[in-house]
């Protein structure tokens, strides 16, 4: 497997989780050992990252950071 393809394996699998929450829930409800192989194949083989999403996805691989202010309020 080339380096490029290996990175695709990570990204396509995670992309599929990002894009299809319901599918990922359904997949996680299948008990381990019953058809996980075909499920994984589906994630790996069917999701080729779109060129337009590449930059956005790349950005999520770094540690994202934000700073914000919260105003104090007593909660009774």
């Amino acid at each position, binding site marked *: 497997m080339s380096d490029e393809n*290996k990175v695709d394996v990570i990204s396509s699998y995670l992309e599929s989780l990002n894009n299809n929450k319901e599918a990922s829930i359904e997949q996680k409800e299948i008990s381990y050992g019953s058809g996980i192989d075909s499920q994984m194949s589906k994630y790996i083989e069917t999701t080729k990252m779109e060129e337009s999403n590449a930059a956005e996805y790349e950005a999520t691989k770094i540690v994202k950071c934000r700073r914000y202010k919260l105003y104090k309020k007593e909660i009774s």
Partner: protein
Amino acid sequence: MVSTSKAVILPAEQGVGQGDVFKDVKYSYIDSEDGDSVEVMELTFPYAIVVSQSCDVAYMDDFESGETSAVVKYMPSILMCPIYPKDLIKHGEHLKEVFSYLDRTIESGAPYYNREDIKVAEKDQHVRFHALKIDVDDKTIVDQAVIDFKHLFSVPMKYLHNHRLQRICTIEDIYIDQIVNKMAAYLARVGLPDPKIPER
């Protein structure tokens, strides 16, 4: 050659455990505070793995589910290690946004995980870095990745418990034991003084 960690994908209902790999894990802290407000820094790690002791994690998951409440076993947070893509950490690029928020700059070309580090880590002999490849059955789902033991952080169990859909897999026992043992060795390292630098 990078050793392979075997993993399983657990149903979302299953509790959080040692070896769980999560994506997009948020870690935040109060950076400054005055009478009216607090300023919060929030980091989102692309991937991270649970490395707290197995029984402790299991207990806190039960605690979060309301199944137990033994005070002596309570822990405020769970220890995690970030996982970075190998290609992005070579020069510290994975931290560029963090450094920007800290008003620091990453020196161009500065080594972070250099060729020698890669060679040693891929022989499974690096003290700080663990080269990571994860297989579920015969499928590789994570590769070209690195755990950095220096970047330990912690999050409350409630956060992990509520984000179980972001768990991508769970590394099997013997492989997570290997990772945690390496982490323990890294934490126990002794820093010796440089004889050329006067003691402070």
